[in-house]
């Protein structure tokens, strides 16, 4: 009997959380499109996500490109198909690794920071203070972050794509000694607009997920320092899992025909 009770309790808690998250998401989206807007805060968040994440995401991308080139060389040299290194690198980066790695990095950097900041605002009554100063916290805190995540992640991933391909180029040309112009030619020939666009759409969705999780967990944090810590952890973990989940779903939507 106790066993069934536990299952029931967990299931109900899951449904309640799903419901709360859905309401929060819907409310966040409607506040993104209804005035008043806070351009100053949107800009600040865009710089935080797009500009200050560049070093982390860039480093991740360059090493991902490099290791891809190295690994695919090991594999392809068995079939004397080393010419395909460029294709593997560019397709993997633009379709998958660019958006997913950038998403995970930004989840760690931005999602955590947002959850901690909004969570601290919650426990120090700053969110209540916003309401008493006739400012809707969903509009002032959540909407600008969602907008910034949605718009800046594709930009970030586009740059990461270029850096990742460059990483592959470095290893292929300087370490493995292949011809540079051949590599670039192969990259360009095999790349289709769909590959890049699908990656950028993913990036946008991941940006939304990261900022949404950061805001949701921060906004609903309880208690003091411990609550904020938990909110931060939950934001990063849930964002990372959702990114991988949605990566599959989106890939299925784009390419499974």
């Amino acid at each position, binding site marked *: 009997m106790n066993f069934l009770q536990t299952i029931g309790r967990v299931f109900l808690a899951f449904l309640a959380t799903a419901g709360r998250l859905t309401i929060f998401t819907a409310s966040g989206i409607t506040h993104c499109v209804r005035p008043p807007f806070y351009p100053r805060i949107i800009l600040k968040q865009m710089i935080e996500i797009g500009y200050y994440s560049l070093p982390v995401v860039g480093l991740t991308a360059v090493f991902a490109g490099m290791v891809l080139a190295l690994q695919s060389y090991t594999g392809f040299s068995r079939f004397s198909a080393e010419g395909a290194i460029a294709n593997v690198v560019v397709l993997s980066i633009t379709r998958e690794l660019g958006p997913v790695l950038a998403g995970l990095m930004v989840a760690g950097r931005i999602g955590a920071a947002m959850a901690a900041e909004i969570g601290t605002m919650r426990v*120090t*009554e700053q969110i209540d203070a916003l309401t*008493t*100063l006739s*400012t809707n916290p969903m509009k002032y805190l959540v909407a600008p972050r969602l907008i910034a995540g949605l718009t800046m992640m594709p930009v970030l991933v586009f740059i990461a794509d270029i850096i990742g391909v460059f990483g592959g180029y470095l290893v292929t040309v300087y370490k493995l000694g292949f011809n540079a112009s051949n590599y670039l030619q192969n990259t360009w020939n095999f790349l289709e607009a769909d590959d890049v666009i699908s990656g950028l759409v993913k990036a946008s969705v991941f940006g939304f997920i990261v900022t949404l999780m950061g805001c949701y967990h921060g906004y609903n944090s309880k208690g003091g320092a411990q609550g904020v810590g938990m909110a931060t952890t939950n934001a990063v973990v849930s964002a990372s899992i959702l990114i991988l989940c949605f990566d599959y779903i989106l890939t299925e939507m784009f390419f499974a025909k």
Partner: protein
Amino acid sequence: MNARSPKISLQGVKKAFGEKVVLNGVDLDVGVGESVVIIGGSGTGKSVTIKCIQGLLTPDQGRIEIDGENVVGLGGTERERVNKQIGMLFQAAALFDSLAVWENVAFGLLAEKRINRRDARDLAVEKLALVGLGSNLIDLSPADLSGGMQKRVGLARAIAADPDIIFFDEPTTGLDPITADVINNLIVAINQKIGATALTITHDMQSAKKIGDRIALLYDGKIIWAGPPDQVDNSNNPYLDQFIHGRTDGPIKMALRA
């Protein structure tokens, strides 16, 4: 009470969190320009009362009227319209730590676009002067200020939009006795100057007697005694006597096990 209808009127307000009943039928009227202090032990629902009036929490039952209008369940722009006339000083000041002092003070007016950013600085200087702070700290971050100064900035922010109603949430908690008295004097002076209706919650009896035109004791989810400060000491109410003298023994049973 004056002849006009009360500014704030709570009628049978009930609020429970799960099994735990916090407010069990609170009735309280606050007249226009009156200063009422709600006293009560920790966890008796003083903060919940104020949050219900502001719409941060929705009561399960009862009416809350501001200027005769029932504000329970108001949402969105309606709620913002009501809250525009309310200023609040939070217990830990709740200043926005990502903004400078002057932006904090002028936040409400800036948010409503009733003022541009250049005028906001001047207004902040003016309001800070009312609470005895100089213009030299308007560019500082709230984190650079002491607790007492943060309270003052919070006070300046609460009065910046010339509210009709001000809530003070434990204005003296966590301050040394002298700073606490300074804050008390400021609150009295500001209430007189801007003529706002004030509702204060505290468990500091000295503060309550100084600030309040009327004191109300909240116990077990109800207002069980209310009267002017000079009657507090000879009320013959066993609950009130126990509270003001801070005795463990008496009719009030603190939930020590909770």
